[in-house]
């Protein structure tokens, strides 16, 4: 539908210089607020979920899976690993490659025990990686994997064992022997530091030990891995992995972070898409309000429409004038909703903290009021369990999300305005003039 400038003019005037009845004006304001408020959860979900997924993914690929993993399913010799490291380092895209040995064990303190996932890492693992240091924080002690008995524990493991920096722990590992029962081997370590990634999944079972010690404890096939970090892990990683695989010795395979973390990433994205779908439904429901307000506006303006038609104004220009009114309602609502939504998204951590504080205070007041009656209520309100989500929700403001929301909303609102607008265009002037 071609929109003539005169329709834009009339559509604009009908909304922004409206001399409509108080009832219609109230409905129009209500429609703007309805659409505006409906955008708030949508934009908040988009920005917050985007930020959370990006934050979690980033942590996983910097700390968990790395950008690429080069693996062999036969026990890799030191020479083979050196050769793989050299090959990887020869690519300009690679910023870092390092050997890692994965293993499992049971770790004991003097009073507690817990299962751990052990990574044997080179001494410069932490100091040589700026990006890693952004996501992995040493909360106590220092990141030290120099001596054979040095160990780093995650906050979760340290809490489970009730140990602190400087305490001694024992790691029980099992070595498989062909045709015989596995040999259990206890090794004593000193806790040199306690770290946190801010994400439970990565922190819950993590223990780091020096690479040399790991070589002794875990020399099973498939445990030796070369971790690789590239300049841009999000673009062209698959193609680069194929290229790298072509240069490696036989029996070595390359896995991208996407191969390794796909189920998690897809689960996050599915949840996000479902949330967005529900939020879009809210916007659609709010758009029905636009439709009813526009119907009221058309009914109120029937005599004026009849007059315009009797003066030979084409039906399609009257229709497009009302579509423009709907569009301007949409623009006003989008400006209002986006502003409020972005403010909510940017301040989501403070907002959640504030809500938790308010409810916790209410519980305290309630508890104090009930105390004389002998009843006791206690506990603090926590909307998100920090153990399962990032400790603070990272916000990622995406221009694409903002533009997409604005365009989508305008499209929905214009579509909602179209039917009443078409009705306005198809009114028979004579019937209206007789009625009035």
């Amino acid at each position: 539908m071609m929109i003539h400038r005169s329709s834009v003019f009339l559509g604009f005037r009908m909304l922004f210089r409206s001399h409509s009845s108080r009832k219609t004006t109230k409905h129009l304001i209500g429609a703007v607020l309805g659409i505006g408020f409906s955008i708030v959860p949508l934009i908040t979900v988009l920005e917050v979920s985007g930020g959370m997924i990006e934050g979690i993914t980033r942590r996983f690929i910097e700390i968990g899976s790395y950008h690429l993993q080069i693996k062999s399913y036969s026990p890799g010799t030191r020479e083979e690993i050196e050769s793989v490291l050299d090959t990887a380092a020869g690519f300009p895209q690679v910023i870092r490659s390092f050997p890692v040995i994965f293993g499992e064990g049971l770790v004991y303190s003097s009073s507690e025990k817990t299962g751990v996932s052990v990574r044997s890492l080179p001494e410069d693992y932490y100091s040589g990686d700026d990006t890693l240091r952004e996501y992995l924080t040493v909360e106590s002690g220092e990141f030290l994997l120099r001596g054979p008995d040095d160990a780093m524990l995650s906050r979760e493991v340290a809490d489970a064992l009730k140990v602190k920096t400087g305490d001694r722990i024992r790691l029980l590992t099992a070595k498989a022997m062909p045709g015989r029962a596995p040999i259990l081997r206890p090794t004593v370590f000193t806790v040199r530091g306690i770290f946190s990634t801010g994400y439970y999944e990565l922190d819950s079972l993590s223990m780091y030990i020096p690479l040399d010690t790991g070589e002794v404890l875990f020399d099973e096939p498939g445990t030796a891995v070369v971790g690789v970090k590239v300049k841009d892990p999000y673009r062209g990683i698959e193609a680069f992995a194929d290229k790298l695989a072509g240069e490696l010795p036989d029996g070595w395979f390359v896995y991208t972070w996407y191969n390794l973390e796909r189920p998690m990433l897809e689960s996050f994205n599915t949840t996000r898409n479902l949330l967005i779908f529900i939020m879009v439904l809210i916007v659609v429901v709010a758009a029905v309000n636009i439709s009813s307000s526009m119907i009221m506006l058309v009914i109120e303006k029937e005599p004026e429409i009849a007059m315009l038609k009797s003066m030979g104004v084409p039906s399609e220009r009257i229709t497009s004038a009302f579509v423009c009114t709907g569009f301007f309602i949409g623009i006003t609502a989008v400006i209002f909703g986006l502003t409020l939504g972005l403010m909510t998204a940017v301040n989501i951590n403070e907002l959640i903290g504030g809500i938790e504080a308010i409810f916790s205070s209410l519980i305290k007041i309630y508890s104090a009021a009930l105390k004389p009656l002998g009843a006791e209520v206690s506990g603090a309100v926590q909307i998100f369990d920090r153990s399962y989500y990032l400790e603070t929700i990272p916000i990622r403001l995406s221009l694409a999300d903002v533009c997409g929301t604005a365009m989508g909303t305008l499209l929905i609102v214009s579509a909602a305005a179209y039917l009443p607008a078409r009705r306005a265009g198809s009114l028979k002037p004579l019937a209206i003039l007789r009625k009035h």
Partner: protein
Amino acid sequence: MNNEPLVHVRDVGKIYRNGPEELHILRGVDLDVDQGRKIAITGESGSGKSTLLNLIGGLDFPSRGSITVAGFRVDGTPEDKLTYFRNRKIGFIFQFHYLLKDLTACENVMIPAYMGGMKKKAAMEKAEKLLEQVNLAERKNFFPAQLSGGERQRVAVARALINAPEVILADEPTGNLDERHSALVADILFDLADTFRTTLILVTHDHILSSRADLQYSLRKGALET
């Protein structure tokens, strides 16, 4: 020189059907109006005056007969062509002004021309001139709610003339005004019709107003009498 009348109505009948009942509003009406003439049609309420005006203006279709205005065959013409016809050839004035509340007086006058395809600047200039001619130049930026009844009807007169129509169809243009404002609006209407040599077909109950026309007709029992 073309001697054809500007408005040519032949044997026009209009029947409204309400189930099996038929209401004959117009019965074989003939009417010729030359360019620049001003005619008045009077008659009792329900006699079919407004119906005849609506038929001439292409707002309604006759049950029989033919209507030609400025060489344009009105009866049986599709709506899109009638829209163009009304925009270029006809100016309507109704008893109620039906001004758009959200537009100023000047914008109300220019809107049929602007929405009909004229450039906004040209339409505004023309509207301002017309408002001067109806003595409302100083009120061009007033909204309808800020104008008196007589002023609103003068804006409606200016609006009817914006597209320089060949025919003005006025249906009780002073029917809603007091005597003083009626006279004022009538003066302006007749003066402008003279100035622009526009044909005026006026439907009214007001004998003072009808007496100013070149010719008076009366509609009785669906037929037109001089």
